[in-house]
């Protein structure tokens, strides 16, 4: 069993790099000429409306899709050259509502990647306990099934599952989108605390500007398959770009926007 990706110390280059990457499906361009990079330890938020190409971008990272032009590199190597299984096991993936296996208990869900990586049983059990604590879940939820959990609990399990094998890269697709505002806010805070402790390369997709401003080190705004701006979070709201202004205005009518 090959060792998982290291946490950025050995390789000096970016953890994830898009090099003029494009993706077309049946002639329709879903992503055009994207150039972007994410360093180890950095959180990049992909912001944009539906159809802007955010999800496509994520899927190019874990090779659920391959670029039709250009290259996508993870840890310096093109995804096309990676063994897809090894690549995906080194990337934690969290989606809306968790995508948990309904026929596995919470524990079995979380333990999935460690088990298929043949970790010794004791280590798996310990890791599950550790993660449940880390995401703030009670240990006796371990034997429940996803259908017996609330939305917020499912989401936490989803995060725990993604973190189980301690992958150096984490990609999240509207991970908190289906939660009620209070739970959502809790999750955001907890996630930021987690992120400060671990030093993973994180790409977080959302269409919510406030969430982006709260969680990001950098924000990449996308529209219709193209990258519009790519700025550090502090500079984002001050940008003069037309689309950024449109976003800010759309969110400025709402309370508590002044997180700049």
């Amino acid at each position, binding site marked *: 069993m090959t060792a998982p990706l290291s946490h950025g110390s050995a390789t000096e280059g970016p953890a994830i790099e898009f090099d003029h990457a494009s993706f077309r499906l049946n002639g329709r361009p879903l992503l055009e000429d994207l150039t972007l990079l994410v360093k180890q330890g950095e959180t990049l938020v992909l912001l944009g409306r539906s159809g802007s190409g955010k999800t496509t971008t994520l899927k190019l990272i874990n090779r659920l899709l391959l670029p039709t032009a250009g290259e996508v590199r993870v840890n310096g190597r093109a995804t096309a050259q990676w063994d897809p299984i090894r690549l995906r096991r080194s990337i934690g993936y969290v989606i809306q509502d968790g995508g948990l296996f309904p026929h596995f*208990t919470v524990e079995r869900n979380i333990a999935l990647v460690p088990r298929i990586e043949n970790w010794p049983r004791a280590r798996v*059990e310990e890791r599950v306990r550790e993660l449940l604590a880390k995401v703030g879940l009670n240990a006796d939820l371990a*034997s429940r099934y996803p259908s017996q959990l609330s939305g917020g609990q499912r989401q936490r399990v989803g995060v725990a599952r993604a973190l189980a094998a301690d992958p150096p890269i984490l990609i999240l697709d509207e991970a908190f989108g289906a939660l009620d505002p209070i739970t959502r806010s809790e999750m955001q805070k907890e996630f930021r605390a987690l992120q400060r402790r671990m030093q993973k390369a994180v790409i977080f997709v959302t269409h919510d500007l406030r969430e982006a401003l709260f969680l990001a080190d950098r924000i990449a705004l996308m529209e219709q398959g193209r990258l519009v701006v790519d700025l550090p979070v502090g500079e984002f709201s001050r940008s003069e770009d037309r689309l950024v202004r449109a976003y800010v205005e759309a969110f400025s009518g709402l309370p508590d926007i002044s997180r700049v």
Partner: protein
Amino acid sequence: MTIDSIRARRQPIRCKLLLLGLVFLLFFPSTGCERHGDRIVVGSKNFTEQLILGEIFAQIIEARTPLPVERRFYLAGTFLCQQAILAGRIDVYPEYTGTALTAVLKQQPSGDRREVYQRVERGYESKFGLRVGPPLGFDDRFAMVIRGDDARRLHLQTLSQAAQFTPQWRAGFGYEFMERPDGYKGLVASYGLRFAEAPRIMDLGLITRALKDRQVDIIAGNNTDGLIPALDFFVLEDDHHYFPPYEALAIMRGGMLKSHPEVGAALGELAGAISDDEMRRMNYAVDGEHRDPPAVVKEFLRRRGLIH
């Protein structure tokens, strides 16, 4: 803690599957081997003469041996009986030499009684491991049958004589007769027969009535049909000796005889015990007088001194 509870959940499903598997395994061996243990299963085809012969076999085995006998009659034809005895589902059934030779061994028919018997005996032994009993004493060959009044009116005795009149007649034949190599095709060739129209193909049970009711004028009946004398029918003589012999005898499973030679001995006592006439009489008792085959058979066996 939790991993074990996962295992516990899956246990009942696995158990059920195992149970189903075991149930299947139990029944697996039952195709084709000797399941009956100490029973003798007597089979027969589904017409009266066969039911009578099957009953004769059953009653004599019951009289001579302590073995229980199961009756599995009404199997619808030669092929089914052959399949059943090969699969071990029956141990013995009545067959005819002509049928055995042409329909089962698929050899060319012949007119010589001895020769046919020997070929059947050898063929069944070598090909199927089945044993053939001695001839029971009568010949149920195909008979071309017409109404008595037609025979008298036209002064007909033989098939060759009838051949001039058949273009005005309608014929009625059963499925087997039409298909068998020793049936319709050969007959037409041997006598140059033609009929007013294509022969009507009917169930054996309906064919006699059709002749009586003048729906047909000539049928392929059987030599030992009980209704022939009763309904004033006439059997045309097969002067070309086209029809091969159909001596009745018992077909027996080799394996059964090995374990129960007393069954072979019991059936052997029936050699030559039934004449053409006797068979016709028994057939008539069942078909014409509507008596029960077991009673008719018991009476016959008593009369011949085979049982008391």
